[in-house]
């Protein structure tokens, strides 16, 4: 039998310091969520995709030899990867990567110009929804009582009308353009957000720290903005991410029924609409914008799902 040294059984005594030492760095809620998110490969791929699409939309038209309005009548409906043969054009000898449309406009440039419009509309409406929804929901939820009842009843009534009807009506009355789409969509888009925030706030305002803030004389505006809304943030962010694909869809839908961006400007929706008109002969004119719309919606949806899982692991399936 191996000899064990007696000294190894000696009592070393207690060190209060060591026992209380923190073994791992403590993580805040956000850090923890980000850690979980970065482990989710699908979500990361989606982020990369979103960044890529945004960068292309921002910069590709600048570096393209063609202008998005420039028409080449001798070179209409050109197939993908065809070389421009218009000598008067600045882009002579350059390649039309995605071909040209019925007016001979370079589709590659137009796709990314359309991407700008679609993405700006989507992100702006999502931000407007966020702001209006947070304010409305926050006030309604925090004050409660009669005000809450009135505000929620009002919301209930507006919510009963299908939002596309309101958007279509507004689009017809207002001057067509990008701002109009944003305004029209924002007038109804904030409703789900307001409901969500109100629900969260109603649950949160029972917490002790709210009572403490009230006791110290914080104003309602301060309590809502500084204490209540930051705590609803995780749910709200997920909702915003999932609102973006909805906005992209609505824009495409409106463009399709002829209420979108006026020509010669374009969006992914209006490009798809033009593509549908002659996709039997030139399918890529539809397929390319269709892929862009679908990829963006897919990426935002999956990223939103990933965010939800990261913020609330209990929900994970």
């Amino acid at each position, binding site marked *: 039998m191996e000899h064990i040294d007696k000294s190894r059984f000696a009592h070393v005594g207690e060190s209060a310091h060591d026992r209380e030492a923190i073994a791992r760095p403590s993580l805040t809620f956000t850090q923890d969520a980000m850690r979980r998110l970065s482990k989710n490969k699908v979500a990361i791929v989606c982020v990369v995709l979103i960044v890529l699409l945004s960068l292309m939309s921002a910069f590709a038209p600048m570096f393209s030899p063609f202008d998005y309005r420039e028409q080449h009548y001798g070179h209409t409906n050109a197939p993908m990867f065809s070389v421009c043969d218009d000598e008067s054009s600045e882009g002579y000898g350059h390649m039309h990567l995605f071909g040209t449309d019925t007016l001979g406009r370079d589709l590659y440039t137009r796709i990314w110009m359309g991407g700008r419009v679609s993405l700006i509309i989507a992100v702006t409406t999502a931000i407007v929804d966020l702001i209006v929804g947070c304010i409305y929901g926050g006030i309604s939820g925090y004050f409660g009582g009669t005000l809450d009842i009135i505000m929620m009843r009002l919301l209930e009534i507006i919510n009963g009308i299908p939002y596309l009807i309101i958007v279509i009506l507004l689009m017809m009355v207002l001057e067509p353009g990008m701002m109009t789409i944003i305004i029209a969509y924002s007038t109804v888009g904030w409703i789900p957000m307001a409901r969500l925030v109100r629900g969260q706030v109603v649950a949160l305002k029972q917490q002790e720290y709210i009572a403490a803030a009230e006791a110290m004389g914080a104003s309602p505006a301060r309590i809502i903005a500084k204490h209540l809304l930051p705590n609803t943030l995780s749910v709200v962010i997920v909702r915003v991410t999932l609102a973006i694909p909805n906005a992209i869809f609505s824009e495409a839908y409106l463009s399709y029924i002829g209420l979108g961006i006026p020509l010669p400007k374009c969006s992914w929706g209006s490009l798809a609409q033009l593509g549908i008109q002659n996709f039997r002969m030139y399918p890529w004119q539809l397929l390319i914008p269709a892929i862009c719309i*679908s990829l963006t919606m897919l990426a935002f949806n999956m990223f939103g799902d990933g965010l939800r899982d990261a913020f609330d692991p209990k929900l994970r399936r």
Partner: protein
Amino acid sequence: MARYIIKRLVYAVLTLFVLITLVFFMMRMLPGDPFLGEKAISPTALANMNAKYGLDKPVFIQYLMYMGNCLTGDLGMSITYNRPVMEIVSESFLVSADLGTRALIFAVIAGILLGAIAAIKRGTVWDSLSMFIAMIGVSVPSFILGAVLQYFLGLQLRKVFGVNIFPIQGWGTFKHTLLPAFALGLGSLATVSRLMRTSMLDVLSSDYIKTARSKGLSQRQILWRHALRNAVMPVVTIMGPTVASVLTGTFVIESIFNIPGLGKYFVTSIKDLDYTMIGGTVVFYGALLIVCTLVVDLLYGLIDPRVKLED
């Protein structure tokens, strides 16, 4: 329960009222004039036309008239078609309803099955496949899907086989309904199947399923008798929005597939600036959706008495 029904009815009526008001005033604010055409009209003729359509009266009186007419089902005369709007709506709505019902049935049945399979075979290829289909359905707008299906299944397949398996235009036979119903239903199918998967996973891990298993029931009995029935409940709650999205989708799907439904009339009337037609269609469509949501919500209470309807 009675109190809840009354409350919901009051809401529905209020919503309808707001909708009609909104439509009326929006129509007044629209740019353009319905009598503005290629040919100049003499002032007398214009005055006569205005009198005929009641456009010469004060706005408030016009509003009351419009409201009264809407409530009696008279949605005015279509300016471009020169026929009562209600007549056009009731004709074309049957087609839209037919298409919508088919799409809805497809979406619900296929969605429930797909979601259930994904949950039962969780983590397998079947799960990934179902969720992949669901993701496609969420991400591809119905009108794009419709056009892509027309190209690949309609045109390319005809080139390969020489027969028209999936007609891409028109309406009439069963074959004509296949592609549009599929394109229309896929989006809702996706929502249904994702919800179904979540709820089925919940149910499958619950205690009464364990009990059922431990008392020796076969897998099939557990799934059909206990799991599926309970898991379907949350799907019923989203039937209202699902009906809405399918009906909204018919607008574009109909114009792509050239189906003589309500949506096609709506889209053309926007281009023609046909005030009364747009207003009539919107009021009819809005009322329909309000009623559908109401019925679905009330039905939900009947199916599952545990649901607290007061919420």
